[in-house]
């Protein structure tokens, strides 16, 4: 799938990827890949600037932990992030329904 198409929705996708619990960047990338059936493949390192900005915006919080003897940053949804995800889901449903109505009408 085209990178710019994925990037346009990356913020919402990342929020959804950490919805079930705290996750580090690797797990977020893995969740995006698996849950999209391999359709969302992006340079893995580019997820970190997105995570950092979502944290600055108050939608995620993060904390250092340790795993396999290494420092690891875990990200969680904040209350504001959860509310934003609910809004974005609704917006996406309405948008995709409208686009499908237009595209699906071709003969």
């Amino acid at each position: 799938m085209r990178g710019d198409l994925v990037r346009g929705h990356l913020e919402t996708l990342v929020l959804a990827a950490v919805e079930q619990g705290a996750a580090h960047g690797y797990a977020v990338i893995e969740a995006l890949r698996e849950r999209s059936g391999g359709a969302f493949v992006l340079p893995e390192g580019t997820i970190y600037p997105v995570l950092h900005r979502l944290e600055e915006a108050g939608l995620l919080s993060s904390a250092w932990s340790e795993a396999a003897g290494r420092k690891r940053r875990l990200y969680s949804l904040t209350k504001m992030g959860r509310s934003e995800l609910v809004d974005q889901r609704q917006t996406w449903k309405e948008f995709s329904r409208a686009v499908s109505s237009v595209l699906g009408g071709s003969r």
Partner: protein
Amino acid sequence: MSAHPEVANFLAVVEATVGRGRRTERLLWELEDHLLEAIDRALSNGASRDEAVRNALRAIGSPEELAGAIAREQERATPRRPMWIAGAGVALLAALITNQLAAPNDGWAMARLGLAAITLAQTALALWGPAAQAYR
């Protein structure tokens, strides 16, 4: 320092590409953890060391792609703090001017002038100073 020289080299190039700083330091920690996890998983799935390292580095993207992603995200970030300070500054200036016009000879004119000058400087810094630039 990573156990894999290729990883250490990649991180050094990233640092040179995106520039040093607190955010970069955190990014480097996260990238190293990411790469080492990818390598460990590939090794446990039977890949050779060279193959595991090569695939992990390919998947994480180039330092230029990372720099591009950082620039995109900084562009999207909202300049919250400088805008908040600028807004408060404008409100305080308006209050000082109103107060001066209402009571021009109450003996507090110099104090109001001094406070207005400080507020004006703070507002200008918030709008055009280094803090405002860093949020862009």
